[in-house]
Every structure is written in C-alpha cells, then in structure tokens.
C-alpha cells in the first residue's frame, strides 16, 4: 500500500513583522545615541568653597599647606610648597623682578601649546607634596589672563589625580578640590 506523503511545508519564517519593528527602533536609537561621552569637573568660587577648619596649630605641627599653581605663558610656578620643591632653599629673586617659573616650558621661552608645558614634572612634584601633606586636598589655580581654557583643564586633571601612581583600586587622588582664583600674576 502506498503511503501518502505529507506535502512539504515552506520552512521560511515570516520575518516581516520583526523587520517592521527593527526599522522603527533604529531611527529612534540613532537619535538617542551619544557618540561622545561627557563628564564634568567640579569647582567652586574661592569665597564660598568648602569650609576650611581653622584649628589652633599645635607647636609641633607643620605649617599649613597653601598650595597654588600659577599658569603663566612661560611655564608653571608652584607656590606654597617651597620647602619640598627646594629642599636646599628657594632661589633668590631680585627685588622688582618676577619669580622664574618652577617648571619652564619644554621648548624654553614661551609655551606654544598645551603639550609644551612640563606636565610630567608637575605630576611628580605634586606627588612629592602629597607625600608630605597626605590630608590636604585643596589647590588654587592662578592662570594668567591669556592662558587658554584647555591648559586650565589639563592642570585641574593633573592636580586632581595621578593615573600612574594608583594603588590597584584606581588612580591616586592628589588634590581633588581645585579652585580657580582671580588675578593673574
């Protein structure tokens, strides 16, 4: 007896509804996609910054750290930590003359762009200062009036943390409270 064969069914899945769905989803997602990641750097006005606790200094205490970084056309001046940067005494500055930059531009003379500033040395110096003052978290940036914003942001990055000196659980935090101050030097 001949066995009746079943008609072969078409094995194609009907994908059209899924196609419809995906075609609608894609324009929506393209609109909501963000191809550049944004982040923010916090800063406050110097006058209303985080309150500084004024404690009577103990006799054996180190003098409080008043770290400032002046960003000038010819380099960076590190102020307020002379005893660490110059263990043998700060260089003499003649009266009426400006203090030479602690970290001059790599090319000498006037810095031409962001990379011309000596960021690596600044990072080293800040690490040294942090070693001496592990509890201090404030730094004041004093840019000159023609300093570009890009340079200020880079100085904030360097002052906030050191990615290479991390201890396993992220970069080493240096001075996270960065305040941008007024006047140029």
């Amino acid at each position, binding site marked *: 007896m001949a066995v009746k064969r079943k008609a072969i069914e078409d094995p194609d899945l009907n*994908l059209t509804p899924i*196609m419809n769905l995906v075609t609608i989803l*894609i324009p929506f997602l393209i609109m909501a996609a963000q191809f550049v990641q*944004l982040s923010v750097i916090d800063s406050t*006005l110097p006058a209303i910054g985080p309150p500084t606790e004024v404690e009577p200094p103990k006799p054996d205490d180190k003098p409080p750290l008043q770290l400032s970084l002046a960003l000038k056309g010819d380099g960076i001046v590190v102020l307020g930590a002379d005893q660490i940067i110059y263990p043998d005494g700060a260089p003499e500055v003649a009266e009426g003359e400006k203090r030479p930059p602690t970290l001059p531009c790599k090319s000498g003379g*006037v810095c031409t762009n962001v990379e011309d500033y000596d960021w690596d040395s600044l990072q080293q110096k800040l690490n040294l200062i942090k070693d001496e003052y592990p509890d201090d978290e404030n730094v004041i940036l004093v840019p000159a009036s023609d300093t570009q*914003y890009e340079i200020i942001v*880079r100085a904030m990055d360097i002052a906030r943390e050191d990615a290479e000196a991390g201890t396993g659980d992220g970069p080493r935090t240096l001075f996270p409270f960065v305040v941008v101050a007024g006047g140029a030097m």
Partner: protein
Amino acid sequence: MATKKARRPEVDTNLNINSMMDMMTIILVFLLKSYSASDVSVAPSDNLTLPFSSAQKAPEVAVNLVIEQGQILVDGVPVLQLGRKADEESGKELASIPEDEMQGQNIGKLYDILFEKAEQAKTLGERSNNPDLAFKGRILLQVDREMPYSVLRSVMYTAGQAQFGEFKFVVYKQE
C-alpha cells in the same frame, strides 16, 4: 487558430530578508550600547570645541552657559557677542568681552539674565517643597578650549555675583 499561451513557471515572490535581518540585529545591538538618556547635550560647532579631561563625573541638569568663539549663550539663547582684542603682554589676538558691556567687573547683560534664572529657580524650589529641586547655585559651563582666562574670569565672577557659585566645567571624557 487558438493558440495556447505558454505559461511561465511560477516564481517564488518571497524576498529573502534573512541577511538584512542579520545586519539590523547587529546595528540594533550597537545602537543600544551607545544609547544614553543623558540630560546634558552639547551642540558641537566650529566655534565650540570642548577640551578632553580624565574627569569621570556624570553631568547633571543645571543652567547651561556656553562660551564659544564669538558669543556667550545661556540655555541656548545668545546673550552677548564677543569681540577680539590683542593681548597686552603677548600681543596675540584673543577673544575678549567688549568694554562697553562691562559694569565694573560684572558683565551687565549676563548678570541680568543669570540673576533672573536664579530667582526663578529659587521660587520653583520653594514652591515644590522638594529638596531635590531646591536652588543650589549650580551652573554648567561649556567653554571653547581656546578661550582665554580673562573671558572665563569675568563670566565666573558675574555668575558668582548672580548667586551661581558651584561651577561644573563640561568636558569630553577621555577614553
């Protein structure tokens, strides 16, 4: 004479969309990955290039102040046109705020608008009784990377006078 038309053999009219489905699935996954519901957005232009930074903090909603080459905008509305002036020390031509816009250290037009925004936000905060909506003096600053500090200083001073003391500098996150 009756002629019989030769029938064409039936052709399967189904379009094969399998390969297209494959492609769409990959695009969908990629787009879902870059999906972000962030409240802060930048409109990049030739006049506004943000600097890169290693900062990791996510932006939050606040008054949006943009300083690009040529003008200052508050929440997308142009407030002030910037001029260009040669710097006294270096002689380079840099963006500057026109002298007649300055009232002492303040930028007059900018102060008026920011003060109004602050008052609005305060009223809103008081009426809502929601501590999340209370006025905290936060302001997002999107600044072109070549902007000289003199312009930034005046803007920051003016914002401070108008009760905005918590600056958030918007930057591109470094990969």
